[in-house]
């Protein structure tokens, strides 16, 4: 592999990769720019002046639905989904390290959860609540609907982690007299921690952006994606882009915080390892 000169194929592939990245980020960058349209500007270029008009517009209650409320609900829901996803998938990950009756069926149920079209989950939960005479709520039925999407991802990641996990650490802890709980608390969980942060990021962002599964399960209060979707059908001003820019910046901030958290964790551990000699 280590030939010193790079051939033509490398540059062609690099160019392809660059185009792919441009394809991924280009459109988002465009609406980021267009959300600063002047008050008279439209949905496309040219820019008609530069202003924060549309961001102001966004926060006027009557202009566009309940942006603030739906944003708060989406964050609360995302956090709940995140905590439950990490907790449930780690626990199940421990279970799957041993053989137990029904483990195969449970695994296939989780995989099925990934491939069942979202609209079916939405329809099924909506119908179920309808028949049982229950009121769908974003913190109840929508929470459950989101879990059917985040849990299988969480479980698969935890599987991948445990497959690479060296059981010698646990055996060493036991040989030194640690109880099963101490082994988990002081040996296994710290080793898993960085990956669990990843599972949490999955849980939060998948829920925060989920649309189809929320459609029939959110009840009378909208989450942010539902609010945005409502806007696409009746708003024809750059206020739509302003909202898009804000949520995108928010998503990037969340990802950035998670990455910073990971880096801080690694630094902290390196320093502790160095201090311990």
């Amino acid at each position, binding site marked *: 592999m280590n030939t010193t000169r790079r051939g033509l194929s490398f540059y062609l592939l690099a160019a392809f990769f660059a185009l792919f990245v441009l394809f991924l980020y280009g459109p988002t960058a465009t609406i980021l720019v267009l959300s600063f349209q002047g008050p008279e500007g439209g949905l496309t270029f040219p820019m008609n002046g530069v202003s924060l008009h549309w961001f102001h517009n966004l926060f006027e209650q009557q202009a566009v639905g309940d942006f603030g409320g739906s944003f708060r609900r989406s964050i609360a829901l995302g956090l709940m989904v995140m905590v*439950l996803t990490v907790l449930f998938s780690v626990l199940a990950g421990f279970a799957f390290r*041993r053989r137990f009756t029904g483990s195969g069926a449970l695994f296939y149920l989780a995989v099925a959860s990934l491939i069942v079209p979202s609209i079916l989950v939405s329809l099924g939960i909506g119908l179920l609540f309808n028949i049982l005479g229950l009121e769908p709520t974003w913190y109840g039925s929508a929470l459950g609907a989101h879990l059917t999407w985040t*849990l299988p991802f969480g479980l698969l990641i935890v599987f991948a982690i445990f497959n690479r996990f060296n059981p010698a650490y646990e055996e060493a802890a036991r040989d030194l007299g640690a109880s099963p709980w101490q082994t988990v608390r002081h040996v296994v969980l710290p080793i898993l921690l960085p990956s669990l942060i990843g599972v949490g990021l999955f849980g939060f962002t998948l829920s925060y952006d989920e649309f189809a599964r929320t459609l029939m399960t959110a009840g009378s209060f909208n989450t942010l994606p539902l609010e945005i979707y409502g806007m696409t059908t009746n708003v024809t001003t750059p206020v739509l882009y302003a909202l898009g820019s804000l949520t995108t910046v928010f998503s990037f901030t969340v990802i950035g915080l998670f990455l910073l958290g990971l880096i801080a964790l690694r630094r902290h551990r390196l320093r502790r390892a160095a201090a311990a000699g």
Partner: protein
Amino acid sequence: MTLTAETPRPSATAAAGRARRVRLLPLVAPYLQAAPLTVALLLFLLVPILTIVAVSFWDYDSVRLYPDFVLTNYVELLTSPVTWKTYLNTLKFAALTWAITLGIGFTVAYFLAFHVRSTTWQMVLFLVCTIPFWTSNIIRMISWIPFLGRNGLLNSGLISAGIIDQPLEFLLFSDFAVVLAFVHLYALFMVVPIFNSMMRIDRALVEAARDGGASAAQIITNVILPLSKPGIAIGSIFVVTLVMGDFITVRLMSGGQSASIGLMIANEISLLQYPAAAANAVVLLAVVLIMVVAMLRVVDIRKEL
């Protein structure tokens, strides 16, 4: 292995009672640990799907649903030419999106895995590819409007370059826009599993092929491609199922001018024709499951983690 390691030491006073608890615990622990996940999936996946199956046999009128066992919903669905046309259209979207994302996914993963030499750069570039996945799909669709619209960047660019003199109408609100958005949204689902497969290919195999006189193209087709099959299969399952069940992308990007099965179900839901939507959903689920089982013949998912 855990059972032997946790054999209690007969030293303490309440040894017998503890011993029983300690020996019992490893036996029930997996069930307790798996319980929350199982309950969540049963309550919010299995029971709802069984509900759909049940409701698909119900009768309904414009006011309410009548629990019953009638086949009219299925008969109406399967005898309507609209259904067949819509399935054809959905399959067309799935096939096009699959082929394009596979091409992009394989090329990008191949570049990252075999042409980027430093691990740090590999991870950085991989992260660059994955970040858009964490942002809102609806916003990513909307962001094509200023680009593809009648007065969008692409049209004005082509006009000022003198290539066309009328704006191209097919760019936005068309099947073209739908497939473009699908590729934009789901290419990543191909890149990640294929990259994962390629990173596990023993580099010595590539070396050996080169020493044996294989050309770069031969190495790709005879070594890398066969060994990347599991990743390709997993990516294909993701992309195909996501496209088959989609309704929001088709609705937004075709401007209501194209149809998909998901969209058909969504429309029936909004008209409160739940039993019709349920029958449609059952058929869609069956079709998707058949496609997935076919693709699973290529790969054992549990081995790939």
